[in-house]
């Protein structure tokens, strides 16, 4: 099924939650509001004609330009974007979902933004969400064990944020 058809099917039920789409991109995507993500994912997984059974990857992209000179030229407002790559083995079609989040919850630096966890829909999301939490700082509400996975558990900060600064030392080990 083409992404246009998938979008048309979703628009009937989830219309108000679908905020943007690009069918011409290399990987056509649909953007969904954070509050609709979980229910949409459940639908994508369970609906027999869609049956997206494989979650390939969850990616978080930090749109923030720390350099003030360059920041004046970018056309986006600072935000965080989650990208979900889905695949249906049964129907051999693909879909990319995007979710736009604020960089920090309530504009309080250090407070990760929140979004519903889809680990109850695909078990792949369990570790992928832990990784996104660890490296990009997104709190997945409803995740059973959201703790760091690649960095040590007492690590401070979210390394894949564009304004991340490497700590000078970790337990007496100099980092530079």
């Amino acid at each position, binding site marked *: 099924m083409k992404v246009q058809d998938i979008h048309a099917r979703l628009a009937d039920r989830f219309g108000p939650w679908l905020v943007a789409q690009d069918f011409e991109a*290399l990987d056509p995507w649909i953007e969904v509001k954070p509050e609709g993500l979980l229910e949409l994912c459940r639908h994508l997984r369970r609906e027999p004609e869609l049956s997206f059974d494989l979650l390939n990857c969850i*990616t978080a992209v930090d749109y923030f330009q720390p350099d003030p000179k360059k920041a004046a030229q970018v056309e986006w407002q600072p935000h965080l974007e989650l990208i979900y*790559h889905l695949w249906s083995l049964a129907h051999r079609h693909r879909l990319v979902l995007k979710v736009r989040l604020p960089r920090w919850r309530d504009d309080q630096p250090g407070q990760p933004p929140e979004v519903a966890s889809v680990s109850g829909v695909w*078990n792949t999301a369990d*570790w992928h969400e832990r990784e996104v939490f660890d490296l990009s700082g997104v709190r997945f509400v409803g995740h059973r064990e959201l703790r760091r996975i690649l960095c040590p558990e007492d690590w401070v900060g979210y390394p894949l944020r564009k304004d991340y600064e490497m700590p000078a030392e970790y337990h007496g080990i100099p980092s530079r």
Partner: protein
Amino acid sequence: MMSDRPASEIVDFDVHTDEMLINMGPQHPSTHGVLRVALRTDGEVVTEVTPHIGYLHRSAEKIGENLTPRQFLPYTDRLDYLAGMNMNLGWALCVEKLLGQRVSEKTRHLRIIITELSRIASHLVAAGCYGLDLGSFTPFMWTFREREKILNLFEEVCGARLTYSYITVGGVTADLPSGWLGRCEAFLDQFEPVIDDLHALLTNNAIFIHRTAGIGVLEPAMAIDYGCTGPVLRGSGVDWDLRRDGEPIFTDMYEGYTWRVIASTGGQYPQDHPYPPVPPEAVLGDSWHRYFVRMLEVVQSMYLIRQAMEKYSRAGGVVDGPAQVKAKLPKGEAYLETEAPKGQMGFMIISDGTPVPWRVRIRSSSFCNLSVLPELCRGVLVADVPSIVGSLDLVLGEIDR
């Protein structure tokens, strides 16, 4: 205490010992690198398994944000370091997808020769180390002897034996040296009967079957749910291989080739080669089947290489060289998964129009394959944990990135 039930069941359910926490790794030979697994045991029975990873984390994605795609290429070698060529190909194709570029006919066949050789090398390590995990030393020596010959061939091609950076954005770094095809052909002729020796050593070895058949059975639905791919998924009988089912930029490479996806469908493996029979103890989706799928894929890779060498020789034109190091990237996003020996390896590149990507994402196949371990190890004996870990064929460089 008399009972009609078999002895093993009595131990499992009637007698409980004090719960014990066992730490396996990160320096443990059968965890294939720096994987740490915390086992909660009741006597010999494992009740809970928690993998801890990250000991080899080198911030590959962050490094990718500071280098141009061609400069990042050597870092991809160090992901799955047992199949560096396949990692190179995954990254090169992903960037080519963003650039909207296709390589020449000759380059396409050359890439197949190289990546399928790399797949054989990787599967040989998997089979040999798996034998070693289960206490059999000979297969390890024999598979490494054959792998060594592949590494010699790679060394002739690009000068490196492990971290090649050979297949690169735009093409390959250099054409094959003269006489190489003949030496590759000689290797394949010599290697073909060795596969039967390996089958005799492991596949139908009674001890090996005891240690692997019926152990760690992975249901197809669970495999897909956890994102398991590659031989782990096909070992559960799911007929899915990106070389046939993937995105056009990857499947076009294999257009015109005759080969089979190795998966047991309807209880039968493809019969295009005299493979040994499946022992009656083996259950679809167990450790034995995961091992067997790899061994059969080695033969398919040999078919592919033979065809590719012929097509390469006949193809006109020249082999494409690398793209410019600091060329500007078009604005956009490209995500591409390719079939690496361990499973579906995904790369994503997000560009803002400058030569350096805004974001690089690496989707690791072993990462997802490992995440199913707690499910597979629930209720098995302690001695079966290395058997299950080994059957997943993990490479920690790829998991931790």
